[in-house]
C-alpha cells in the first residue's frame, strides 16, 4: 500500500461506533495525530469516563491506518483537558441534526462549585424531525452516556439530544 494520504487524513475519516454519522474528528475525540520515525501516534479522549466505545475507536483507528500502509500505530488516551460537547464541530452538529439527533447547546464552563438544579434542565431545542420548539424532556439519560431523551409534543416523535458537558 502506498501512503498517499497523511496519517491525519486517514484518522479523521474514522467514525464514532455509536454515532456513525460523526467522525471522531467532528466529535472532538480525535485530539492529535503525530508521526515519529515511521510510527503514528494518535491521541484520543473519552467523552465520558466509562465510555465503552474507546476500545472500538482504538481498534478502528489502528485498522484504518494499517490499511492505509501505516504499520506501526499507537493510540494514546488523553484525559485532560476533559472532553466537552463544545468540541463537536459545526459539520458534526449538522450531521447529528440531519440524522435526527439534536446537537448540544453551549456547555456551562462556570468556575467554582456546580450549582444544584432540582428543576428539569431547560434547553431551547427544536425537534430535529419537524422543527417545532414544543419539546419535553423524557430523561436526562439515553441509550448512550452522552445523550438525553426528548419527545416532540408537536409531531409526537421521540428524539435524542447530545448533552452539554
Amino acid at each position, binding site marked *: 500500500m502506498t501512503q498517499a494520504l497523511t496519517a491525519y487524513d486517514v484518522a479523521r475519516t474514522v467514525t464514532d461506533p455509536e454515532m456513525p454519522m460523526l467522525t471522531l474528528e467532528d466529535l472532538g475525540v480525535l485530539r492529535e495525530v503525530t508521526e515519529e520515525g515511521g510510527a503514528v501516534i494518535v491521541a484520543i479522549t473519552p467523552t465520558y469516563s466509562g465510555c465503552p466505545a474507546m476500545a472500538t475507536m482504538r*481498534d478502528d483507528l489502528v485498522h484504518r491506518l494499517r490499511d492505509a500502509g501505516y504499520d506501526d500505530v499507537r493510540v494514546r488516551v488523553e*484525559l*485532560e483537558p476533559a472532553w466537552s460537547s463544545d468540541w463537536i464541530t459545526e459539520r458534526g452538529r449538522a450531521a447529528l441534526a440531519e440524522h435526527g439527533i439534536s446537537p448540544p447547546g453551549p456547555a456551562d464552563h462556570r468556575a467554582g462549585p456546580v450549582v444544584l438544579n432540582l428543576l428539569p434542565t431547560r434547553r431551547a431545542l427544536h425537534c430535529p424531525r419537524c422543527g417545532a420548539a414544543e419539546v419535553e424532556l423524557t430523561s436526562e439519560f439515553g441509550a448512550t452516556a452522552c445523550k438525553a431523551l426528548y419527545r416532540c409534543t408537536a409531531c409526537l416523535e421521540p428524539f435524542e439530544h447530545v448533552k452539554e*458537558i
Partner: protein
Amino acid sequence: MSHSTPDPNDAHGSVFDGLLGSDDSQWAFGTDFEDPLAGVDTTMPEGVAPDALATYCVMLADDALVLSHRVSEWCSNAPDLEEDIALANIALDLLGQARLLLARAAAADPTVVPALPEGSPVPPEDALAFFREAGDFRNVRLAEVDNGDFAHVVCRILLFATVRLALMERLRESRDRVLAAVAAKGVKELAYHRDYAGRWFLTLAQGTDESRRRLVAALEDLWPLYPELLATHAVEDEVATAGVGVRPADVAAEVEVVLEQVLAMSAVERPDRRALAGVRGRTGRDGLHTEALGRMLAEMQVTARAHPMGQW
C-alpha cells in the same frame, strides 16, 4: 448436563470464534483488554508516598466500583424504562471512574495488586476488582448495603453523589495529574447524578403519601451510613497534606448546604439517627464491612475467579 470450559487459547478454536467472523474489528468489545490509562503520564508527583497514593486511589475507586455494581443491579428492575436507562448510565459512569482509579493505584504502587498465577493475562485493574477479599476493599459502607426500593437508590445516589462531587471539585487541583484529570471528568458526570437523584427526591417527597412514606423510610435507613462519607481517614489526611488528595471533612460544610437545600425544598426533616458504629474504630475505609459486601463480591467476582488465566 455439563459443558466443557471453552479455552480461548485452544488452537482448534473456541466456541466464540463464530461471533468474531473473519474480522476481529467486528468484535464489539475489542479483542483484548485495554489499559484505561494507556499513554497517560503516570509519573508520581513528588512528596507523596506511593503506597499512600495507591491506597487513596483504591478508596475512591472502591466507592465507585461497589456502588456501580449495586446500581447496575437495578438494570431491568427500575419502575420504568427511562429510569432503568438512567441508573445504568450512572453505574457506567462510576465504573469508568473506578477503572481509571484502579489503574492509577496499580501504576502508583504495583504491590497493591493481588498476585495471580504466572502468565495470567488479567490486567492490574481487574486483579484489583475481582481478586481481592472483602477485607481489602476500602469503600464506604453506604456503597455496599443491599438495594431496597426505588426511593432507597434515589437517597443513596443523592448522598453519595453530593459528597463525591464536592470531593472531585477540589481534587481537580490535585498535584497528581492523573487524579486531577479523572476528577475533572468525574465532576461533569457526578453533577448529572446529583441532579437526577435530587429531582427524584423532590418528586417522591411531593408525590403521593405512599411515595413520601417510602422516601422518608429510605432516608432514615441510609442516614446512619452518611457520616462515614465525611470522615477523614489517616490515608486521606496524608495525601491531602501532600496536595494530592482531599479531606472529606473539608467538604462537609458545602455538602451539608446542598443536602439542606434538597431537604428544605422537599419539606423532609433531617433524620435523627446516629452514625453506624465501626468496630474498634474501624469502618469501610479500613476494610471493615457489612456482610452485604461479601455476598455482593461473591456474585461480582465468581466468573473472573473461576478463570484466572482467562482472556476476556
